[in-house]
């Protein structure tokens, strides 16, 4: 069936099978491979994207469910060429190793910070409770989100100098 999905601000119209999962639509049809497919059973959260304004596990959502709606993926975190503070936080605080769970972690973190700009460690852990990391041990991920809370986009210039390419 024909669906139209606005992904990171761009409209995409495609004829898709009703059984196509949203994660495969994003990766194989739209060509945005930053959203990862990790477990097939909605346990790991590597595939989290926003459907309208809500984080969903795109491995257990169908592409047709996104028809007429908006999707935001990791590729849509940057604004005007500037990394989102969450992205910078994960770089600053070593919130990643292999990086496979990272896009999902960041999408949920951005959602949390939009609703709660100053979350406690416990609130961050609660928000990320549906997501698994096998490498880092979570502590750096929690610190990364705190870093993003403490360095919101408006005063980002100074902090970004350390890691940005020149």
């Amino acid at each position: 069936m024909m669906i139209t999905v606005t992904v990171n601000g761009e409209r995409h119209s495609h004829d898709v099978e009703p059984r196509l999962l949203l994660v495969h639509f994003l990766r194989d049809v739209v060509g945005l491979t930053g959203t990862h497919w990790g477990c097939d059973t909605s346990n790991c959260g590597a595939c989290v994207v926003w459907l309208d304004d809500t984080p969903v596990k795109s491995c257990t959502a169908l592409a047709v469910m996104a028809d007429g709606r908006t999707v935001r993926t990791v590729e849509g975190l940057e604004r005007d060429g500037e990394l989102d503070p969450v992205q910078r936080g994960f770089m600053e605080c070593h919130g990643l190793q292999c990086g496979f769970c990272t896009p999902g972690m960041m999408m949920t973190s951005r959602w949390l910070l939009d609703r709660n700009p100053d979350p406690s460690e416990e609130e961050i852990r609660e928000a990320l409770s549906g997501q698994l990391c096998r490498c880092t041990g979570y502590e750096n991920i929690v610190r990364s989100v705190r870093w993003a809370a403490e360095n919101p986009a408006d005063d980002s210039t100074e902090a970004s100098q350390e890691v940005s390419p020149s």
Partner: protein
Amino acid sequence: MSAPVHPRSAPTAPGRAIGADLPRVDARAKVTGTATYAFEYPVPHPAYLHPVQATIARGRLTRIDTTAAEALDGVRAVLWHGNAPRLRATDNAELAVLQSDQVFYRGQVVAAVIADTPEAARQAARLVRLDYDQQPHDVDLSPHRGDLYAPKDDHDQGDLEAAMAGAEHALDATYTTPMLHATPIEPHTTTAVWDDSGLTLYESTQGAHFARQELAPLLDLDPQRIQIIAPYVGGGFGSKGPLHAPTVLTVLAARAMFGRPVKLALTRRHMFDQVGYRSPTIQRIRLAANAQGRLSGIGMDATVQTARLAEFIEEATGPTESMYAAPHRHIALRAAELDAAVPGWIRGPGQCPGMFGPEVAMDELAQACGLDPIDLRLRNDPDHDPATGKPFSSRNLAACLREGARRFGWHDRDPAPGTRLVQGWYVGTGVAASRYPVVPPAGPSEATVRHLHDGHYEVHIGAADIGTGAWTVLTQIAADALGAGVQDVQVRIGDTALPEASVAGGSTGTMSWGSTIVAAARAFRDRHGTAPAPGAEASAPLPDNPATEQFAMAAFGAQFAEVHIHADTGEIRVPRLLGAFAAGRIINPRTARSQLIGGMTMGLSMALHEQSIMDPRFGHVVNCDLAEYHIATNADVADIQAHWIDEEDPHVNPLGAKGIGEIGIVGTAAAVANAAHHATGVRVRDLPLTLDHFLG
């Protein structure tokens, strides 16, 4: 396609990169979603593969009916042993996929569907009908089986029985660790393209060259006609070390579809029977000691499983051979060949499960002797390697125990178990030792240094960064070796088009690739001096290190845990884990700390949750997804700290660095189990520490 180049890192002054707390060079790609894992290389018009798995554990296929599958829209072919391309060398039976009608374990790939979409392939795979001549299977691991064999020589010294009989304190207990799965968050994936130019693989692997070396003889293909590309890997933990059958399957499908790319992404369920697992271990430990806690006898009889299809041995006795000395020792490993999938590398093979029993036994002995468990270990810390008699290049277990104890706050610990009830929770603390040997790298390495212009360099080596930070630390090592800043050095990795590198395994990466880069930089300066022309280059292999013959080499550590166990429900929480390690020179404290903490977290996960449950009736793992195979989550992890002592080891390699990728997982589970005993008085000898152990 060549390996990607990253934005330049934060600058460092020439010669000052090693030891600097540098952000990862691959961080930006990973936070922007632009890091290309194996399934993410755009290839034109790919076909998708889905395996069909045996539903019996032993027997022979008598008929495969592919009619319904082939009739489905979009299905291009169904491969099985009757029509699959032949492999040339099948010495490693695990890799001889679709080559015979024999079924060696439930879950073995016996056919595969190639289709235009992954959905069609998956649907068609369910329509393939299999008929068997089924035989009784056997998946029961027991130390009492009559058919156990010795995969390696026993280590016998003195008379352990006599030592046990004459000891002031004697302990004889059996400990078990369950079957475990590596469970990287990126499932194993392969994209294979076989056309007139040869075979190209985008592969989730810990060693591109290692994979090529295994693949070439199977296909009877000149290795130069195989390119394997793997700059980004979403975790491996051993399972992506050696080649496994799904990669070979994808290559066969690409051969069948000559010219058209074929892609296979294993589902999480496939990950439980296709890519190895840690064998369960059964460990009978005997310790004999005098009144002062000096060991007179050490015994370990370990039983592990291997597969009828192919042999893999979890060398669980390895740590005991080298950990503590005694005049009377008996160390023996036995294996059972079962109708199960082939075991394989998982983070700290042998070392990780093999330290659980012995380090819990040491805690039990300390209690029996009325000694502090740290004191018992200090009294038995040997001067020479008990396995070989060689001196250690450095052994700082004692320093780790002392430093860890100081940081953890061990000194005022009340040794009595089961006496601290705080708001409904029993509170306890425990300690265990860690060790990881310096092992020879699996395979040769070579690096090339090229001067681009004006003091900017590229360094080429086919190394792998599976999340470890290797890409970053190799950049630091190269910068110092060239007397440049890291901003002037680009390292390319993860491609067989680059000079050959050993596999990322055995915690050897930084040591072997780093030493190779240092050698290549020296060769470069020898040949081109300090003012090289643009395009000047030099290569060098990994130099031999004669000191490896003279010394026993290993990293050591001490892990401390605080455990709370609910008095009514048995719920177990671990609010604190602290590790102190001696692993030589630390190249990058940021990536090193993360590796150690990540290892400790996986050890915590092993202590509390992880177990793959084999159903003996059918011969397969029943909890084969992440809903049922539990790994540590955010809520399990509280305060985890990793520290290290300054250790100078002039012998281990020119960098003075030891591996840090695996030692973090060794000993953690024993520390948690010992703390659980201290909290409750309940001695748990079987992992994981589920709450039922503490009830009743």
